[in-house]
């Protein structure tokens, strides 16, 4: 790895640690990383939009003589009228057109694919011939299909509020809420896995891309060896160490003032 590449890897490592430092408490390094992320994302998006959409899909078309592209171009410019109080009404015309097209496109397709096809799936005959399926929690088994059918109907019953949830009706509604809870539980489980995955990825980055590169590069047989690799590595940790010492000193000086003690409770 070249030194300049490692320099950027180190910047990314610093920003990773700066973001994680928020878990202790809000601090200037976290603020810096957060602001940088927002700024870079916005800047990157503008450039991507300019070179990826406006230039090939509008300016180039106009330059090639496709004059009717002038119409969407003007509609786009009209959107900027929002910034001027007196003429802000002009922006409603392109917006109305956009909303009209989007709604026209969305309603039939959403209805067909998110409502009708889901309803059809509910009305499939239950697979009695393979009721217990081929393996544990088999999605194609008869009992899964039966559970999905009963669960869907009872969950819908739970949201029927024109009748008191008592007696048999209440029991079905109760089963409905349990079904919903199972769904929320599955979502929560997946979410935990997702959050841990993000942390694992950062460990892998800090270890493989940053730490191992810094120290493997110290092997002088490596043609790209540069003493600065390890210096950069330790410099980042030094920044956090200095901050930790600063925080600890602040903690000691505030120790006798319980109302100002740092920390949050669960």
């Amino acid at each position: 790895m070249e030194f300049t590449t490692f320099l950027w890897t180190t910047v990314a490592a610093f920003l990773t640690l700066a973001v994680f430092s928020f878990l202790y408490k809000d601090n200037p390094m976290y603020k810096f990383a957060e602001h940088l992320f927002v700024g870079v994302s916005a800047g990157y998006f503008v450039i991507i939009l300019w070179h990826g959409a406006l230039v090939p899909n509008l300016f180039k078309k106009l330059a090639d003589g496709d004059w009717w592209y002038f119409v969407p171009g003007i509609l786009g410019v009209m959107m900027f009228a929002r910034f001027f109080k007196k003429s802000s009404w002009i922006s409603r015309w392109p917006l109305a057109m956009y909303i009209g097209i989007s709604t026209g496109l969305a309603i039939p397709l959403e209805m067909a694919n998110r409502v009708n096809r889901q309803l059809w799936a509910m009305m499939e005959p239950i697979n009695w011939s393979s009721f217990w399926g081929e393996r544990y929690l088999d999605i194609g088994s008869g009992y899964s299909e039966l559970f999905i059918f009963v669960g869907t109907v009872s969950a819908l019953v739970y949201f029927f509020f024109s009748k008191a949830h008592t007696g048999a009706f209440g029991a079905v509604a109760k089963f409905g809420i349990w079904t919903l809870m199972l769904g929320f539980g599955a979502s929560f489980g997946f979410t935990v896995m997702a959050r841990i995955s993000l942390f694992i990825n950062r460990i892998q980055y800090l270890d493989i891309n940053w730490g191992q590169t810094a120290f493997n590069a110290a092997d002088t047989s490596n043609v790209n060896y540069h003493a600065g690799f390890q210096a950069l590595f330790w410099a980042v940790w030094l920044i956090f160490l200095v901050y930790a010492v600063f925080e600890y000193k602040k903690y000691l000086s505030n120790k006798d003032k319980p109302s100002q003690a740092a920390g949050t409770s669960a």
Partner: protein
Amino acid sequence: MNFFSKLMQLDRRWVYLLLVIVCLTAYYSDFTVPTIVEDETKAIYDFIEALEPGEIIFVAVDYDPSSQAELHPMTYALVEHAFRKDLKVIFTALSQNGPGMVDQAIRDITDSLKLPKTYNGIFYEGKDIVNGIDYTFLGYKPYYAIVITAMGQDYRILFPSDYYGTPLDSIPMMRRVHNYDDIAIVVDISSGSITDAWISYGQGKFDFPLALGLTGVMTAQYYPFLQSKQVMGLMGGLLGAAQYEQLADNPGLAKDGMRVQLPAHLLIILFILIGNVGYLATRYKERKV
């Protein structure tokens, strides 16, 4: 203040610290956990495996760097598998920070494929993956629902040139490729609502085989589309990526990451149990008073 009251007021940073210690210990320990492959991931692998060399798959990389932890391993495993089988790949990135993700993935996968390697007992010579012949990256366009719909007519409507500025008609693999009819499958690897658009505006309107690779947070809510057969396969979170890596005999960051998931999950389950016991014990004591 008794033990349970103290527990209920525990500073949450102790929980974070314990989780970090467990994750780091697991990461640096040498052990493996088995990966059980589920049918929904295997369906995608089997579909790609059954395609003939030269066929085209469409990979929509619809995620930003914030989701690369879960979704990059999926893209790497799936695309590397496709290239090894001499399939051609069309990439798009309909997420605003997605083009960088595709760029990085193509670079890394191309480097990886230069090395000869054996997968599932079959030896593959190292080879060069060439832009325009083996893959095309169309790039990013805003308003994904409209983009997905327009691509059903012709890719050229919104992508007259690829991400690098080459006109689509000048790209060898795109000469006879116009819309979804010319591709074998769309694989949407996504971290947001673009997936809904691929289901409604893409698969629902143009009826192509659609497979999904999703973040863990999203996975549970897309299983109904698997059951209704609107989606032919689904990879959920890091687990889905690890399953694909296992099937493709190409262990990577996802398989490695699943080792850490196990102790981390056990710890979280323990925290949930302790938290609930603490809550119930405190409530019981309050009622008694």
